[in-house]
């Protein structure tokens, strides 16, 4: 379910405007307890990716899956998934948000 319709949920500090991938309790920049839920466009580039072939017990049912670190164009780095274990690409490749699953953003190559 693309509930966030192409947007990645992040935190935005209402005191200084800083963005953070979260979850986090206070603003990492100005330390104000003023982080609010926000959204940024789900477009960015692939910093790196791996395919987890020996998942921890909690993820065993999923089989192999790809975890990626994405640098969003909005300037936030997030750890998420690629939409298929065979989805990998060149580092720096463009990606877009495909869906959000259990709060984890899932990306596909653009």
């Amino acid at each position, binding site marked *: 379910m693309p509930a966030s319709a192409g947007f990645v949920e992040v935190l935005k500090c209402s005191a200084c405007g800083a963005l953070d*991938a*979260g*979850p*986090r309790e206070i603003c990492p920049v100005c330390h104000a307890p003023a982080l609010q839920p926000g959204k940024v466009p789900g477009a960015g580039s692939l*910093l*790196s*990716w*791996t*395919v*987890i*072939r*020996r*998942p*921890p*017990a*909690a*993820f*065993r049912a*999923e089989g192999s*899956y790809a*975890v990626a*670190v994405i640098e969003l164009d909005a300037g936030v*780095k*997030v*750890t*998420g*998934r690629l939409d298929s274990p065979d989805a*990998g690409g060149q*580092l720096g490749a463009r990606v877009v948000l495909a869906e959000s699953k*259990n*709060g*984890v953003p899932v990306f596909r190559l653009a």
Partner: protein
Amino acid sequence: MRDVAITGIGSTLFGKHEGRGLESLAVEAANTALRNAGVSRKEIGALYLGNFIAGPLSGQEVLAGIVADELGLENIPCTKVEGACASGGIAFRHAVLAVSSGMCDAALVVGVEKMTHASGGQVTQALNCAMDNRSDGPSGLTFPGLFGLAWRIHAAKYGTTRDEVSSVVIKNKANGLKNPLAQLGAELTFDVIRQSQPIADPIQLYDCCPVSDGAAAIVVVAKDRVKDAPDLPIDVLASVQTRGSPRIAGHRDIVSFDATVKAAEFAYRAAGLAAKDIDFVELHDCFSMAEIIDSEDLGLVPRGMGAKWAAEGRTRVGGDIPINPSGGLLAKGHPVGATGVGQLYEAVLQLRGLHANQVKDAGIGMTHNLGGSGIACTVSILKRPDV
């Protein structure tokens, strides 16, 4: 601050200890260390015990007090220290602080872990307690996965190849064959490594350290109180601890850990030394790629050259900078809470000239212990007293 030396050391074999509990392993190592420390049990003023996952895997906490009771120590402060896979190194640093500050004249450090009785899934799950489970955990990332992410970036930036990375594995496994405490020494070929099972691409089976049981112990004593030590006391020049980001995405660069870079910088400064003065290092090679990154972060190998130096033989015993002559975590084993103390045990043997895989004329040694996704790090520098 007073000068501090290591007098007593002890260790169990690293590997599978079927039917033995954490307490049994810890007491074996600690009792050995106490018996060759040259101080009486009454003089031990503090105990620091490094352990990471006795809670989830064995349902046992308060290990520090249990071990002290078994050993017949006084009613001293006994503290369990947790910093993921750096727990042992952190325990050592606290003991050094306790003695150097004058709080006590001698302190006992123990590191212990029992892992092999649990299933692979349980172990992975327990180790994942070392992630920030608000962020990286939900993605399904694992520690091999972290180093898979790092590998791709290292390869893209520096042209690092599968076979160059395998050189690290082949070296450490061969070193492990010479170490009587090691769990999994082996003579390996590039082919065998290349064909091993994929774990977290590009990480394959032989890129990973084994699951291990084991314990190691060290007695640290004020330098002016070492006269009764039966074996050569080894000087502690620096024991430094730092933190880094708890999250993958929080690292500026996934092929370097700030915690290691800073710890090395502070340790060199504290010891009044530079990287070129280090004769050997026992560093945190939980994965082949980890050794490559660590060696660069510690300044022992030029940035980007970690794998290439291994391939050129510059990091083996007899090379420019011998890395993990013990076999490291890859071959000696990685009982996580014990590892940092085990590294110090190996370094002391090297500096006494008694190691089974001896670095010739070893005078100054370094140990490096890294926890979590780079959240906790210790670096220590030890010296033979006549150097």
